[in-house]
């Protein structure tokens, strides 16, 4: 079973020896029962690190910030940063490496295998607790989830509380790491795309009604793209492109910026935004589920990405986030890619 103590010891050692700049990990939060990201610079603070099924965040997202920070600084500290990763998070790092956004020695990867577990889904847990507030969620000795509330402890089978994406996860262990805790258990997932298949089965108009209702809710707070380690563009293409400005850009050109979508959070504009994000994540999304979790309006954004993950796999035999050397999904092709949809 994954033990965070080994990783903590390693983190402490690395910090003490000055081999890494800081460690990105999980700690208890002040705002509720879920863990939150923590940035540890001193070896004595390593104690604060926790590992439990509420460690949902994909901490590789913060490697993007680290890169930006280094770019801004005149004399950047180029030591690697330590980062705790689950299986899905590690695959995000693989994609970042694949796209040369970071280099392998920018990061010291502290991997934790979810083994047969994963992370809890807030809504599923709330459903189980019927109004009671959770205080803590832990993994019990038989792998079950133990939830502490004001009324004491309650136990649940893992499948009942796991996030849907964890139930569909085919590699619950880090595929790349410098130190690994826990086992690389091969899981057999009967329906890795079950949730998407359910939606595919809906009649066309029902699909549309579902998505229209969901996308109408969007207020374009952009939490989905902000939390996403793959959305590392300095400026999203759907925003007016400001960064393209150079010294020779004329005022007229500035005024004549391309506007793919309006700022208004209207249905049509929201759709385009979510389409663009989905298509830009095709072959890049590693299904960490953070976009869905972060959405304050519970839009199931993950399905759009999962759908394209499914197509990438089924149409093009493309697996995301296992091999940093493979060409990207959309910058490669096979001679026999299907073309039955073409006239």
């Amino acid at each position, binding site marked *: 079973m994954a033990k965070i103590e080994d990783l903590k010891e390693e983190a402490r050692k690395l910090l003490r020896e000055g081999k890494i700049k800081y460690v990105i990990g999980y700690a208890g939060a002040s705002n509720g029962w879920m863990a939150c990201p923590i940035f540890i610079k001193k070896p004595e603070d390593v104690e604060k690190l926790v590992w439990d099924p509420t460690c949902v965040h994909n901490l590789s997202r913060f490697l993007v910030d680290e890169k930006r920070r280094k770019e801004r600084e005149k004399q950047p500290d180029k030591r690697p940063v330590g980062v705790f990763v689950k299986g899905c998070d590690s695959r995000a790092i693989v994609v970042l490496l694949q796209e040369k956004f970071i280099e392998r020695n920018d990061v010291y990867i502290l991997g934790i295998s979810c083994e047969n577990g994963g992370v809890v889904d807030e809504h599923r847990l709330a459903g189980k607790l019927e109004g009671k507030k959770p205080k803590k969620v832990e993994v019990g000795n038989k792998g079950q989830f133990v939830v502490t509330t004001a009324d004491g402890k309650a136990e649940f089978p893992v499948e009942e509380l796991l996030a849907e994406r964890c139930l569909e996860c085919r590699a619950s262990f880090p595929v790349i790491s410098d130190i690994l805790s826990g086992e690389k258990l091969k899981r057999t997932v009967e329906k890795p795309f079950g949730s998407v298949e359910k939606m595919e089965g809906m009649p066309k108009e029902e699909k549309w009604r579902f998505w229209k209702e969901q996308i109408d809710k969007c207020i374009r707070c952009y939490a989905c793209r902000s939390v996403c380690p793959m959305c590392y563009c300095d400026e999203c293409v759907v925003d007016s492109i400001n960064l393209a400005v150079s010294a020779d850009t004329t005022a007229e050109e500035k005024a004549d910026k391309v506007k793919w979508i309006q700022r208004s959070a209207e249905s049509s504009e929201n759709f385009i935004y979510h389409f663009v994000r989905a298509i830009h994540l095709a072959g890049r999304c590693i299904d960490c589920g953070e976009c869905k979790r972060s959405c304050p309006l519970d839009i199931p954004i993950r399905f759009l990405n999962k759908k394209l993950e499914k197509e990438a796999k089924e*149409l093009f035999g493309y697996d995301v986030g296992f091999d940093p050397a493979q060409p990207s999904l959309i910058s490669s*092709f096979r001679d026999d890619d299907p073309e039955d949809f073409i006239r």
Partner: protein
Amino acid sequence: MAEEFEPKIVAFLCKWCSSAGSDLAGVSRMEYPPNVVPIQVMCSGSVSPLYIFSAFNKGADGVLVSGCHPGDCHYIKGNYYARRRIHLVKKLLEFVGLEPERFQMSWVSAAEGTKYTQVIKEFVKELKPLGPQIKLRRNS
């Protein structure tokens, strides 16, 4: 009597094959419905998904991307990238419930004026019963 619905279609035609094929249809005085407004691009591989989404957003009832047949690309392999990219876009649009007929891709060579005509005729015919595309259209 209400006027018959005339779908608005944007067609992205690659310069070397499909646009040339469309020119051939013209030279041969073939007739097809005037619903399609063509945009000539250098290669089907240069058609960004943004173009397609944007066309629907701006009120297109249908969008066509047309390029050279596999193996015939003027730029060797642009149409292979297009094939993959466009396929993904198509799957995505269908996933949210857009009618599959609204977004199509074709291979039309410079010699296939007849095929171009046929593609347009069929496209228009398939779009007519669907009525205007309001799902993704701005201000609808």
